[in-house]
């Protein structure tokens, strides 16, 4: 201790202390700060592979350096989350032009998707793919999620996420089969017609609440068959198809009995 105390007036001491302080702060930050998952795992090889996949599958529309063309937007800064959403739901690579890219069987496997995401993420900073914990529905509060969903999402996606129509042939897809990770991805990246809900708008915890609400809807209804959860129109159709057909059928049967 004495040796240390003796050197505290050394003229290099402030510099050493400053370096130590920076090291500690940086270290603590590195441990505590939310770290983008792909940024950590992305290796140079991943980015290389992603670049090759990009050139083969995406560059035709998005341009050789993902700078965008007249047909497709620039991907600089869209982040890994955007690639993860678009590619893992099969929306990209796009099959044909239309009002909106529809989901279809995915064209890239997990690794290819991750490589592509790593490449696009390397082009500029953007939203990262969420961690397992961020999308864990069991940790969310469905009541808070319900409020947020009804306020922010239901006008397009329907009150329980059964989907809805937008203008000119576009639509808001139904959410029952969308994975938790992609619900999160969609919120932070705002694919196609969807607005971006960034972390200042809806915090990561609130996003998890929303996911919890959507996941809760997958249990169906306590009242029986959900009839698509589409509201009064489908109820009306079933009134006629089930109720009136059965009742008129019964009336014909009763009426035919004697006469």
């Amino acid at each position, binding site marked *: 201790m004495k040796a240390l105390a003796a050197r505290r007036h050394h003229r290099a001491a402030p510099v050493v202390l400053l370096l130590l302080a920076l090291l500690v702060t940086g270290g603590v930050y590195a441990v505590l700060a939310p770290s983008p998952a792909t940024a950590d795992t992305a290796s140079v090889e991943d980015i290389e592979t992603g670049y090759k996949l990009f050139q083969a599958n995406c560059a035709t529309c998005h341009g050789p350096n993902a700078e965008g063309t007249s047909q497709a937007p620039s991907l600089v800064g869209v982040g890994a989350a955007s690639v993860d959403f678009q590619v893992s739901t099969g929306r990209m690579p796009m099959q044909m032009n239309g009002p909106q890219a529809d989901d279809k069987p995915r064209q890239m496997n997990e690794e290819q998707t991750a490589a592509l995401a790593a490449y696009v993420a390397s082009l500029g900073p953007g939203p990262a793919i969420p961690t397992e914990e961020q999308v864990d529905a069991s940790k969310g509060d469905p009541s808070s999620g319900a409020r947020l969903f009804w306020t922010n999402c239901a*006008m397009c996606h329907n009150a329980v996420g059964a989907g809805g*129509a937008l203008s000119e042939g576009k639509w808001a897809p139904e959410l029952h089969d969308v994975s938790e990770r992609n619900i999160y991805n969609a919120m932070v990246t705002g694919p196609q017609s969807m607005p971006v809900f960034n972390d200042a708008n809806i915090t990561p915890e609130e996003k998890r609440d929303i996911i919890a609400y959507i996941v*809760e809807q997958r249990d169906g209804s*306590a009242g*029986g068959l959900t009839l698509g959860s589409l509201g009064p129109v489908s109820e009306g159709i079933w009134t006629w198809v089930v109720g009136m057909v059965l009742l008129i059928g019964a009336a014909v049967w009763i009426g035919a009995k004697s006469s």
Partner: protein
Amino acid sequence: MSAAINSPVEPTTPVGKAADYLDQRTKIGVLTKQLVRKVFPDHWSFMLGEIALFSFVVLIFSGFFLTMFFEPSMELTEYHGEHPAQLHGQLMSVAFASTVEMSWDVRGGLLMRQMHHWSALVFVASMVVHMMRVFFTGAFRKPRELNWLVGTALLILGLAAGFTGYSLPDDVLSGNGLRITDGVVKSIPVVGSYMSYFIFGGEFPGEHIIPRLFTLHILVVPALILALIGVHLFLMVLNKHTQYPGGGRTDKNVVGVPAVPVFATKMVGNFFIVFGVLALMGGTMAINNVWNYGPYDPSLVSAGAQPDWYMLFLEGSLRLMPGQGTEWVIFGYTLSLNVLIPAVVIPGLLFTFLFVYPFLEAKVTGDHREHHVLDRPRNRPVRTGLGVAFLTAFIILAVAGSNDLIATHFVMSLNLITWVLRVLFFVGPVFAFWVTKRICLGLQRKDRELVLHGHETGRIVRFANGEYIEVHRPVDEQERWIRVSYDAHRPLEIAPATDARGVRRKGYRSDRRWQRISRFFYEDRVEPVTPAELAAAHAHGEHDEIEAQRGTPELVSGSASGEREH
């Protein structure tokens, strides 16, 4: 007892004794005897009105249960029930909270709620189908015009009952519906905003609307419906039931079965079937799960927000109306034609048609007779056409009210659907009228053919001279009766414009106008086969048959597409 002389039959069974006891004090036997022996024509389509009646009974039973648990209050409360998790701790009205609690915490509550809602949808649907039967068979003609008016009033009351009930749980959907109602009321010129304040007790949504709707829904509207059902049934018994045309059935008799036991048995059976189907629907098909829409908040509206099916035409009418350029500001007052026309004028026109049609038809037909035998729809081509045109307009509007779901489920552009339906709303009913009228006239011609020449048998016979004929089998008497016993009305004939002295006759212009409408109804017609025509055709036919029997070898037999007039 000296009763042996006065009443030779002494009741022996307990039921008999009780009935006798009652009869001696009320003379109920006289009334019962009449009702028991009352004859009802038997046909499945006469049971459609019963479906409406029985679903109303189910509505009353289930509604009685629901009032035990529903609290019509707009006080705010925090939800603390265990289920559903998505409502924990949320702020909501007591009305909404009690709806959710009765669904999740009251035994059988959800079943009752769902049965009540399905019954409401079936109630209106069966009224509509019953009304279609009455319209297309002309059962609204004299002496039943008044009962038609009662029935139409019942339909409107049914819509009112449905609408007030839909609004009670105070969820987002019902609040959206009330907001539209508020807008519609406000669009009425001059008095609109005052009426809105009057209805809501201040600015929308206020704190009064749920208790007010509750009183309407459980007291005023059902009481009116019950009273009018009483009038409806009383008039039905008084006027006697109509019957379909057939051998021996005339405007002066009723051919059918006595009320007891046959008709009553069928009626009771039908009641149990209606009850069973509604219970099945309530038990297996989720309806209006209000916790999915959430408690009402004026800032919320979700995709797929629609009213129940019977109000969809109103929603569709609003969705089709172009918004731009239809809202006029005159001297600082706003005239919202974009709401007034689709939500007030169009439904007004549709219901006016329903109310006035029987009187319009009687006037243009010049018909003052009583009718107890129903029309076959084909024999009144213009009426049938108008009915189909009306339904087409109604269905197009209902489809327009579901345009967003059509867009998503059939992968179409919402904008395109809206434009197509805007055009169809004007073109569709006209086209439907024209097609229906043509089909009716065609069917009437087919009837004439059938009566004159009989059924095709598919037997082709060749004569020695090489001529082919198809042998026809004559229709039997019943078939013929149905096909020839109808009136082919002619357009009204009116007195000339001037009287014998050449003076212009008063009321001639009005007569001319009615004649023009009458021409629209009866210009195109197919006359029924007259006995003379029938005799002529038979003579001709027998001639063929004789030739056929004259031992010419049959060269071709069996079904053949080649047929020949003879």
